[in-house]
């Protein structure tokens, strides 16, 4: 599903180490060479390693003429580090001239989902490709075509990955065990006139502007760790979508996070305050400051809070 020749787009996961980090740096360098006019101001780029040697911070300021900027970071959970588990979250960011895309995914990580880290990475790649392809028709967010297309594309990709890895196919007549790769997905595409958001499973998407902070999508009514998933039959039925017209031309920020972040706060008020704090830092000090600190903030949040992996994408709209 990955397309070549798009220098400003990259998928990052905290479990991959040197190769992903190098790739991210190269990708940023390439994009900067395409538009050198304003890179410093708009490209807080680079990939760094946290205290555990895990790559994370990334920006996607590939086209500095875009009204949108996208940055993000991903950290492996404190509990995962203690138990030698891989990071099961994934992050994908892209900024183009006319649109930006941010996707995060949270592989379930339970014993019945041993390849959920791969499932999460596949989910963000697939979401990017499908959102770009369907961007011209996204105005009608009630359309079920997009959720269905994402489900089908993810399941196609999972079967391909499964075969490529030489894993045992299901016995004749048995359904493919997508649960092995189970994952959530949050994705947003920001276009000239609107932002389109979709979500399946847990995690949070916040919109923040001068009027305050609010969830973009309704919260699924699940208990505890139960979550809806791309691996379910007819997963498209559980996909929630929202479209927000760009009617108010004031700066806005969108935060996409896996649930490891919100679960790190003592209560929801603390989580919403984070949205307001991010917005204020951006407006007062710029996105660079967030980009510089984001991985450290997520690392500390996981350590002090949920212990879970955290992936966060931040999109800003000037």
């Amino acid at each position, binding site marked *: 599903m990955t397309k070549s020749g798009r220098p400003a787009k990259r998928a990052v996961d905290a479990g991959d180490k040197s190769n992903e980090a190098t790739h991210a740096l190269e990708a940023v360098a390439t994009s900067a060479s395409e538009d050198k006019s304003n890179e410093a101001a708009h490209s807080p780029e680079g990939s760094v390693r946290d205290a555990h040697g895990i790559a994370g911070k990334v920006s996607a300021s590939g086209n500095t003429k875009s009204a949108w900027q996208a940055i993000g970071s991903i950290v492996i*959970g*404190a*509990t995962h580090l*203690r138990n030698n588990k891989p990071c099961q979250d994934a992050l994908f960011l892209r900024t183009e001239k006319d649109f930006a895309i941010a996707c995060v995914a949270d592989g*379930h*990580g*339970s*014993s*019945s*989902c041993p390849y959920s880290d791969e499932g999460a990475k596949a989910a963000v790649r697939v979401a990017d490709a499908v959102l770009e392809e369907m961007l011209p028709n996204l105005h009608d967010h009630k359309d079920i075509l997009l959720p269905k297309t994402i489900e089908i594309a993810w399941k196609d990709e999972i079967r391909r990955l499964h075969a490529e890895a030489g894993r045992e196919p299901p016995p004749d007549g048995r359904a493919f065990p997508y*649960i092995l790769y*189970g994952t959530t997905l949050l994705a947003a595409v920001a276009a000239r006139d609107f932002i389109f958001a979709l979500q399946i499973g*847990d995690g949070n998407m916040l919109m923040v502007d001068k009027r305050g902070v609010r969830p973009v999508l309704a919260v699924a*009514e*699940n*208990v*505890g*760790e*139960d*979550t809806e*998933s791309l*691996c*379910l039959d007819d997963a498209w039925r559980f996909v929630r979508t929202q479209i927000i017209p760009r009617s108010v031309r004031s700066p806005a920020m969108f935060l996409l996070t896996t*649930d490891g972040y*919100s*679960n*790190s*706060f*003592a*209560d*929801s*008020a*603390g*989580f919403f*305050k*984070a949205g307001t*704090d*991010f917005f204020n*830092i951006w407006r007062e*000090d710029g996105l660079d*400051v967030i980009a*510089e*600190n984001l991985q*450290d*903030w997520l690392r*500390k*949040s*996981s*350590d*002090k*809070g*949920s*212990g*879970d992996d955290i992936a966060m994408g931040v999109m800003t709209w000037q």
Partner: protein
Amino acid sequence: MNERNLPGGEMSSRILDFFWIADCSGSMNGEKIQTLNYAIRQTIPDMRKEADANPNASIMVRAVKFSDGAAWHAPTATAIEDFNWTDLTAGGVTSMGAALELVAGELKQFPTDTKRLPPVLVLLTDGQPTDDFRKGLDELLATPWGKKAVRIAIAIGKDVDLAVLEQFSGNAELVLEAKNPQLLVKFIKWASTVVKNVSAPSVGDSGSGVIDVNTIPVALDDDDEIW
């Protein structure tokens, strides 16, 4: 780097609620209740170690006793670091349904967010309910967290109604038959260790789905059948 304060409000670890639900009926008198008291007390250091090893989960312990009715033995949720076991004494009948109603009432208060981990309920009994068990179980399973909980039943001796315990646990593999004091100690200790497993997400499973039943202690053929 221009370092900043952490965005957002106060942070906290996730909460894992652990309930001991103990039969104190007259038939428990003697070695059974003594062994139960001994074994639960023995679990405390290990649970504290587990809490130390996982600072991202706070283990909160409660205890319910039942005989002629049901009551909180440890009345408030207590962090395992501060939890101490006060010995139970036996006498009366087996109001198991009332005990489950008491637990259900507590679980109803829990918010259904993703912050909380599935509760662990450990029911210990040597007999058959003398009250409306079904009503208590229905109330428990009607709560979102009761349905989601890891529910383990430990049958003490051979006079237990195992069908009742299977209804409670929802999984026959989580009904453990302790036919002597040594097994009772092992089972209680094992039940306390499931806190390690209750942190992985699940899709469509009950909380019990995260438990590795292969780790349950096995009764040996030459184990004495004392009870």
